[in-house]
């Protein structure tokens, strides 16, 4: 009987040590769920979800402080992906945060720009190029269409334009759906 007890105790100690070592060795620095949620979010960094950027929103979702339907740029697709990831039911986009729009970029009217740098400070992805008292310009490739640069502009020289379409990136439209997908 004592043999059994000592063997079990030994095994317990051994596994405890392995687990303890593994916990230290393979420690996860941040919540992996936040990373996963963040990778689904569209990274416009627009703050329409009421959080200052996509990562804070991802953190809030992971902590259960925010719902999954607060991201207008992501729209239905992001809500479905989040619902899949978190095992929740998808729900319609919360209209409080805005409506889903087609992809846009902003453009600076370079004749009107006075070079105040306010938009540069507002841009979350450093997509505006310029310096004090120099004309500013938007790098359309990098612009996420968050529109955060529009309110600070003192001369209202920033306009929203639809994102440029070119032949190589053209999407074939879906044929008219014949049968509504069963829900």
């Amino acid at each position, binding site marked *: 009987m004592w043999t059994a007890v000592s063997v079990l105790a030994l095994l317990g100690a051994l596994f405890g040590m392995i687990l303890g070592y593994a916990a230290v060795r393979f420690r996860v620095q941040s919540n992996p769920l936040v990373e996963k949620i*963040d990778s689904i*979010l*569209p*990274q*416009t*960094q627009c703050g329409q979800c009421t959080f200052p*950027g*996509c*990562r804070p929103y991802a953190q809030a979702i992971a902590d259960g402080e925010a719902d999954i339907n607060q991201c207008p740029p992501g729209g239905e697709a992001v809500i479905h992906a989040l619902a899949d990831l978190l095992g929740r039911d998808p729900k319609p986009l919360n209209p409080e945060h805005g409506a889903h729009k087609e992809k846009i970029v902003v453009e600076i009217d370079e004749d009107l720009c006075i070079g105040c740098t306010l938009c540069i400070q507002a841009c*979350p*992805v*450093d*997509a505006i190029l310029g310096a004090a008292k120099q004309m500013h310009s938007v790098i359309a490739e*990098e612009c*996420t269409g968050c529109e955060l640069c529009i309110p600070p502009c003192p001369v209202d020289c920033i306009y929203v334009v639809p994102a440029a*379409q*070119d*032949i*190589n*990136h*053209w*999407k*074939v*439209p*879906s*044929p008219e*759906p*014949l*049968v509504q*997908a069963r829900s």
Partner: protein
Amino acid sequence: MSKRLFRFNGGLKLADFKTGSTGQPIVQAPIPPQLILPLQQHIGEPAEACVKPGDTVTRGQEIARARGAISASIHASSSGVVHAIEKRQVSHPSGLLAPCVVIDTDGLDRPQQAPVIIGDAYLQQTPDAVRKLVRAGGIVGMGGAGFPTAVKLKPGPEHGVDLLVLNGAECEPYISCDDMLMRERAPAIIAGARVMMHALGARHAVIAVEDNKPQSMQIMAQAIRDSGAENIELRGIPAIYPAGGEKQLIKVLTGIEIPAQALPINAGIVCHNVATAEAVYRVIYQGEGAVSRVVTLTGNVSQELNLDVRYGTPVEFLLRTYGIDPALVAAITIGGPMMGYSLHAIDAPVSKTTNCIIVKQQGAALPFSNHGGTRPCIRCGNCADVCPVNLLPQQLYWHAQSRDFDKVQDFHLFDCIECGCCDYVCPSHLPLVQYYRFAKTEIWAQEREKEKSDLARQRHEFRQFRLEREKAERAARHKQKAAALQAPSAEEAELAKKKAAIAAALERVKARKAQADTKPRNVDNLSPQQRQLIEEVDARRKQNRQQQKPGPEQKNSDTE
């Protein structure tokens, strides 16, 4: 190689509607007043324009240079003056504008001053040099996809090429440009094929022609005999659509099935169109870049024709030239009825991949184009029976329709060659291929979005890092300054030292003055005379001091 032929799954026997357009020789189409040459007529990077508006160009002059590994140059297809480089309608299913070089032709069609004609001397050139010539000639696959030919003439480091397949199957209905080319320019095709074999290091070549083109086969066989090439073989293959698909053709000829993710080169086989071989011939033997191609003009037209058309000729110009009123045209299909697309704007130009123009006039009927009303899928499975790639079209349709893009890829959407067989046999007239194209482009778009959002995340994170760093740097600077304010500077120390020296000097003066007022020593036992003298001196001194006193006092108060 065995003489046996193989069979791919499914496929269709289609009525070919080719007799009308093969009834007469290829007609030279006139040069239009304005040529519109898109900078991208191929798969890959668009070419970069190297002329400017106002420049005079000659036929065959390079007007846009290939940019990047997978790209093709564009050449002026006639002489004239560059009108503009601007966005114009191009022949593409989207109907979007794309950058083009527009040339006002002068009608003289002047050729280049000194074309580089290699001729049979290509055999002395390295394969790499031949590839460079083909690349400079702007040759792309003319079967429809438009992949730059020079890239497909490179065997790659680990693959030797055993077999060159020249595709003369031309399996789609209506299209007969390759058929006519084989009838009229067979020696050029053979010569081009030999250049290709040299570039590839291929041992054999097989020219595959569908057996519904007996005339072409006869002429090609004669041309092969005349050329004396023993390693080029002509094979007739059964006319089953889509036998002209690259992987289908290879299966028919060799029995080898090219795996889903692989290319024919992995099996040591390279496939080129016969028209591409002819274009290669023109580059090597005539020193002429890609300037024209044969296009079938067919459908509801009075005379079905095969035209030798300069690239950049607007479709509208061709219609008017051959007696078709554009106002009466209901639809124009570019390519065949199975895989083609309808043209949005009639002023779009003929490009390197335009093999057929099918005109549908208002009120006229055209086979293949009468898709009746669509009905729900009845799961009959006809589509799976005819699919030449062994896919499950109805499953693909189901998932594409419900936008389940993961599922649709599980069913190998990207192996679909969009041949349209499933569309053709569907009793419910479902636009199946359009669903697949929709799903494909949607998936690509999602991938691009993902890349873009990853980039945005990176930039946002770097910006935050930068802001933090700037804040830290500013804080550090402030701290340094505050510390500097508290510690006395070297200048101040110097000043303090000087002040101390002055104070010390003043002290010394004061002390001396105090000493001056002390009692004089050594004045005992003096004679009366001496005493009197001393008193006199003392009196004088006193007098002097009283006179001088205000001066030094004033000065002292000033310095303090």
